[in-house]
């Protein structure tokens, strides 16, 4: 079994939610908020919400889409916002740009809906990430498997989802380490292809463990 020179260090992250000073009652105000809010706010309402609502595997993508659907009843716009896939983005700037474009295009095309008040206001919040090492690491596939099975949701989310922004490589911590430290590129790719939108964190982890087990049988 391959042994990595650089270990995989398991870390957990706890996220505090900071309440911003912006809110939106209409789609036009949502657009203004999207243009002006912090990067940490875009992260909170897209990346982090996927982690905190991971158990919803049908029709929930991000807070902007959910608010547009439930508060303004604009299914068409909600769908366009929901299909933006965070895995396609390696920067918040690019994600913000697309979110703004989608809402702006809708407001231009349907100006009568842009200033219509929603049922509830949308409050812009931000994530503050606090990371702490879990105190164990992996040097081979067995140890990675063992560590994976004991991770909390937050720790799994940190390595599997939020890592995409940190790495800026359209991959996650597990796949990156498997590929770069153990040379297991196919396994790394297969893990990276697990759909974070249609899986819960638990089912994504279960798939990952199955893929690892299949790889271990080859050894």
């Amino acid at each position, binding site marked *: 079994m391959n042994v990595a020179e650089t270990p995989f260090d398991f870390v957990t992250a*706890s996220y*505090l939610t900071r309440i911003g000073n912006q809110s939106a009652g209409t789609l036009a105000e949502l657009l203004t908020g999207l243009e002006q809010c912090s990067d940490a706010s875009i992260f909170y309402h897209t990346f982090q919400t996927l982690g905190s609502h991971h158990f919803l595997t049908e029709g929930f993508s991000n807070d902007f889409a959910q608010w547009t659907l439930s508060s303004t009843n604009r299914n068409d716009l909600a769908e366009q916002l929901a299909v933006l896939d965070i895995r396609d983005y390696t920067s918040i700037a690019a994600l913000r740009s697309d979110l703004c474009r989608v809402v702006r295009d809708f407001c231009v095309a349907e100006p009568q809906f842009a200033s219509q008040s929603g049922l509830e206001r949308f409050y812009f919040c931000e994530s503050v990430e606090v990371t702490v090492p879990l105190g164990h690491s992996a040097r081979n596939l067995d140890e990675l498997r063992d560590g994976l099975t004991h991770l909390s949701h937050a720790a799994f989310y940190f390595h599997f989802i939020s890592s995409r922004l940190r790495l800026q490589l359209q991959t996650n911590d597990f796949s990156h380490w498997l590929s770069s430290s153990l040379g297991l590129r196919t396994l790394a790719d297969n893990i990276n292809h697990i759909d974070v939108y249609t899986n819960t964190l638990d089912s994504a982890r279960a798939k990952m463990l199955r893929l690892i087990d299949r790889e271990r049988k080859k050894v």
Partner: protein
Amino acid sequence: MSEVLMASRIPLENYEEVVGAGEIEELRALAKPLRGRSIEMINSTPVGGGVAEILNRLVPLAEELDLNIRWDVMKGAEEFFDVTKSFHNALHGEPYHAKRKDFDVFLSYNEQNRATLPLDAEFVVIHDPQPAALIDARQPGSNHWVWRCHIDLSHPNHAVWVFLEKFVSCYDAAMFSSPEFSRQLCIPQYLVYPAIDPLSEKNCPLDSEFVQQVLHRYQIDPHRPILTQISRFDRLKDPVGVIRAYRIVKRYFDCQLVLAGGSASDDPEGALVLKEVVRAADRDPDIKILELPAWAPLEVNALQRASTVVVQKSLREGFGLTVSEALWKKKPVVASAVGGIPTQIIHKHTGLLAHSVEGTAYQIRFLLSHPEIAAKLGEHGHEHVKENFLITQKLKRYLALFLMLDRHL
């Protein structure tokens, strides 16, 4: 050692079965850098009310993580609590004519408590407005002070808020239960949800035999759909509106309605509302109006578990934790989109939101017609609570806050 004696102590390990070993390991990892650090929680009552209930659970769990935590209760006489009750209502937006004397009473009791409380912990957490002026005891640069506000400040009385804001702005941070409840402040504000304890009597698993006994005791038929609203008899909970919604549903489904709340005997307004509810029920044998003694947690638990649909048709609400209690029991919930309820009910995902009597009735009918969708909403609701509204999550957020303050993030 804390001044307040804990009513009950549940070992942290007991939560493993509910949230998983990984979550407990994570709590220990987050607490490790804070081991031995001192924390002081201060509120104004040792028993009764949501804050005392939460601290009763939170403080022992934090002690198990080797945090040097104490919980102190500020002392005050009747005149102080009369004033703070008025302030509380005024901050909720009720009409109030601020008098100079009231502010003096407030300041005087805070000053007396500054002289007797330690206030020297590395992290001092002050709960709600009553002890807010204790911040004046703070030595510059000495320790971290956080103000935890459990009430809705979205429409406060101007004079009371201006008075209070002077103190709040001296803290390092403020914590609110919902973004909607917060104010524009010069200090950072954080979102910390209220939480339920999955192992408390109100939420722990129950034998079905006990549930059946409770139904039998209150003459509720277990074989017909049961709609339930658990809340005190208060106009803001709109119990009469619930009866109107029930009557619409009753045209299509042979259902029963349970309205259960604490006794209204020592609450003149509650007694009045209870009379209105009894009148609105008009001796319908399928409407059960239950005055439960001191909230009878096990009976509330049983009634929620026996329900087909749980309703929370509030006109105004704080956070509305009864919603999380029902979701934890995997119950489909129909609730008003007010206060903290939309945070708990993600429409069509973890429950259904309504904005009127007719809307409430429609959503209940929908759930009674589609039990498979009702079950799915209940499942998702349970997961939502597990992820966001359990006491272990709340503890995690406190730990993250202390770490963040310590690291000056």
